[in-house]
């Protein structure tokens, strides 16, 4: 492995200063970054280990009813926080549908948001990849691309963002708190990830040194707890990335949808908030017809980037199902097979 410096800053300010240097990268649990380093995909000169920073591992309810999740909270701790799971069940379900128990125990909130694509050509240093080596080309474009993007892609990159966690978060309007060289700022999670356009190497709006310190769910996000689901189709029952996934959350008042939230995963370079579909549902009765219409709005503009036309039809059906499940109501407990089409099978243990 390439030699690199390892620094362990004592404060957030020190961390930002250390990471603002060219060639530096933040290290959280490393479940993604270390794999990339071993494969020679990422070759940082300096790792800034943030796991020892104080105060970033709290889950707190703020005075206005927001929930603030520190960037170092582990995926498992967050999903198993009873109060969190009650208030934001689709987020907990999404977390538990990701990776494996061991990985979730280690992986952090910040790392999950900024995990890299699973595009095989990105991981493979012998392939051309505009994201890894800007301007080199995109070997996925005419390659083995059945799992690539169907929304928001460009000729220069057709990769998807693989996070499950981000999908319900973006649906619920999560806000990301960032500490940078210019101090603290915050942006909507929906604005954190960039679509590839001409510059797929720029995956987020973060600047050198920017540290995610927390993710915040605004007060309104609690309003969906009774009707919120995450659904993830994958190629094995557990421990696989989504082929396509969706988070659906409804606020139902007097038999009508007062407000709907919908986002898709595995379809684009960012968690894909489907606002047009949300708008369609506002004020409607939660019927199959309404959900059908929402589904076609959600996939408006989708086009295959390769051998993946099926993902568009699959996404449509997943949206329809996720909305139907959400309308039925959040189950009392997170299913043993979280987010799975087989979630209803009883007797299984958590996976």
């Amino acid at each position: 492995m390439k030699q690199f410096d390892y620094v362990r800053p004592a404060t957030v300010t020190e961390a930002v200063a250390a990471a603002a240097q060219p060639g530096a990268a933040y290290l959280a649990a490393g479940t993604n970054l270390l794999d990339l380093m071993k494969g020679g995909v990422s070759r940082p000169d300096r790792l800034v280990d943030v796991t020892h920073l104080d105060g970033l591992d709290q889950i707190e309810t703020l005075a206005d009813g927001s929930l603030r999740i520190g960037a170092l909270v582990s995926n498992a701790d967050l999903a198993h926080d009873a109060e969190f799971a009650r208030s934001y069940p689709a987020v907990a379900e999404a977390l538990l549908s990701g990776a494996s128990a061991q990985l979730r125990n280690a992986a952090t909130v910040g790392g999950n948001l900024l995990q890299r694509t699973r595009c095989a050509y990105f991981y493979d240093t012998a392939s051309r990849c505009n994201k890894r080596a800007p301007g080199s080309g995109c070997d996925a474009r005419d390659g083995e691309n059945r799992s690539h993007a169907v929304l928001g892609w460009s000729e220069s990159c057709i990769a998807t963002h693989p996070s499950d966690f981000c999908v319900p978060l973006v649906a619920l309007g999560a806000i990301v708190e960032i500490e940078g060289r210019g101090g603290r700022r915050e942006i909507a999670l929906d604005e954190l990830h960039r679509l590839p356009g001409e510059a797929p190497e720029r995956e987020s709006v973060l600047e050198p040194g920017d540290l995610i310190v927390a993710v915040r769910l605004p007060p309104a996000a609690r309003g969906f707890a009774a009707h919120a689901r995450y659904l993830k189709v994958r190629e094995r029952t557990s421990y696989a990335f989504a082929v396509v996934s969706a988070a659906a959350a409804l606020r139902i008042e007097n038999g009508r949808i007062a407000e709907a939230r919908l986002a898709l995963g595995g379809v684009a370079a960012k968690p894909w908030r489907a606002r047009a579909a949300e708008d369609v549902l506002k004020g409607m009765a939660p019927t199959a017809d309404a959900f059908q219409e929402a589904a076609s709005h959600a996939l408006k503009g989708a086009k295959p980037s390769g051998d993946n036309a099926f993902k568009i039809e699959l996404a449509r059906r997943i949206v329809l199902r996720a909305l139907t499940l959400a309308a039925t109501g959040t189950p009392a407990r997170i299913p043993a097979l979280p987010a799975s089409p087989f979630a209803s099978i009883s007797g299984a243990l958590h996976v």
Partner: protein
Amino acid sequence: MSELNLTSAPAHLRHGSNIGQPLTRRDGILKVTGQATYAADNHPPGMLFAVIAAASIARGRVVSLDVAAAKRHPGVVDVMTPEHKPPLAIDPEIKTNPFVFRMEALQSNEVRYANQPIAVVIAETLEAATEGAALLAPRYETLPPLVGLDAGESFVPPVVGVGNPAESYHGDVEAGLAAADKQIDATYETPPQYHNAMEPHAVVAHWDGDRLSVDMPTQGLKLSLARIAELFGIAHDKIHVRSPFLGGGFGSKGLMGGPPVLGIMAAKLVGRPVKLVLRREQMYGPVGHRAPTRQRLRLGTDTEGRLTALDHHARTVSSTFDDFYEPAAGASHTLYAAPAIRTSHDAVRVNTGTPLFMRAPGEATGSIALESAIDEMAWACGMDPLAFRLKNYAEVEPMTGRPFSSKALRACYEQGAARFGWAKRPLQPRQMRDDAGLLVGWGMGTATFPALMFQAEARAAIRRDGSGVMEIGAHDMGQGAWTALAQIAADAVGLDIDSLDFKSGTSDLPDAGIAGGSAHTATAGAAIHSAGAAVIAKLADLATSDERSPLFGAGNAGVIAREGRLIRRDDESRSESYSEILARAGVAEIEARGTGAANPAAMEQYAMHAHGAVFAEVKVDPELGQIRVSRMVGAFAAGRIINPRMVQSQLFGGMIWGLSFALHEEAITDRRTGRIMNANLGEYHLPVNADVPPLDVITVEEHDPHVNALGIKGVGEIGITGSAGAVANAVWHATGVRVRKFPIRIEELLTQL
């Protein structure tokens, strides 16, 4: 390996016999406490680490390597390349026997497949060697690679599998098809698959002058030793190979491949012990795999649903530089009684590492296609798939007309179907739903695998203290050889298993033959059985010819050995302990050897196969197409069961492998570069626990007096066959959609649901 502290629980449930007891693995405690030493756990003093640099192109030539940059890296000791390497005694391209496969030992700059070793960096640490390998930054002259089943001109290989003819006939297939009342013609595809044993290939090589000690996992100690001897030009007795435990092999550790040879060469080059371990992605190339196939099946039936013809053609691939042809169509030789059967193979050459034996080579790929086709044919006839199979039950081996040495397949069908509840299956597909609205389907497949025997030798001894010794260089791949073979050994010398020193897993012991072909327990077991009988006969000679013995005059056939005593067969009150006999004779130890091998006369006369019937239930989401197996029952008849617990594990493992074959496993090859894009366990999907349903295994009683003295048929591979087809057929029954490309993908179902 008597230094191993092997234990087992529970002890005997029944006195006087070890065979048939469900003993737990005697190496289990060592493994769960981390004391079982696998090859890569060895660290001789002064050891260096070697890391392979692998080609990132599939065809062409290495034109430069930045050896200087690698050598400058701190800790790097040397870089082995085609220009700088110790000489081999013979060219590794020469096939000195049919079990020798060509390997990459840096003999030239040519690249024949992706992930081919092109250099080896040797360093003080693994990290330094790894970075050194990255610093080599190879430059290539790249040629367009040959990729896929249509890569070029096809040809008929001279043989498929191990020495089987590429084409076989029985009867007139075209006439049978022409006369048929109903016909099907269907083409199935199976993908390339990789063994992916949990333990990667590893070697620790240590030269001491011209003596060589090698720690490496191998399924063939003596074959590996012989290959090392010829490649390095040293005598067999100068080489010591240790392989007490393997973390799985599945065929990929059977024959000596290039990577361990490179480790031994590296140790020679630097004059220090060297360890070389493949990284997971490096296992996708130089250590074999299961070749992809495209299989066309044409079946015809008469008005009663009897097969009139069965035509099975398989296209496969081999490498550009060696020959191994997945004998997929051979699966149609034994199962169904068609009056006309034709099997044929052709192949193309592609830029791949040479395909090799992978658990049930031929049978696995052939079985999923054949069992799917049988299901399709039954449906075309409007018959229940089990009734159809029974209607076409082969009473004799269809291709040869030979009787079976034993065949309890009917009982497998009956017991499996009863346990599964098959009788309630609706004939039409897409009839069943569960409470949650998921589609439910039931499918079945017939399992079969030949009962093979190789050659083995064992040495047995009885010591003056009454204890026994059994020596055989057998291989425990995790299947339980340390336990099952010791059970056979204990019975063979009439001792309790704890009074027997069972030595195994090293090359200085008698040759146990290869652990493959599901034949290891049968072959090594037969050798152990005969060595035991021979040493007991010698002991009996001592006793029965000595006037002072209570057994005097019994004649050596007139005694039996039990619990450390020889007992007069016709008068059990007259007996003598082993130690008494040896003490009186003034002998410290008495020994004898025995061999195990197939009986050619019996093989001439009988067809020898294990059989089984597998039943599967799947659930399919009716809109989303995701599939999950919810239940499987397998009933298998495989002759004598030495250890029911180990056998059940083998069959479970085989059934899970079958499920994986139908739904999960596929190496994805980039069609332009010939490189494998999912060479890791994150993306090369194997079933996880949540994919594996409750499995039910029934072992059906079967007595076979012909296969070998112990009546063992072998269970290592048969579990895959039948299972893969059963799952695929269940998917059809759930959905009404017939997918003929494996693994079954969501997109294949989605639009047709």
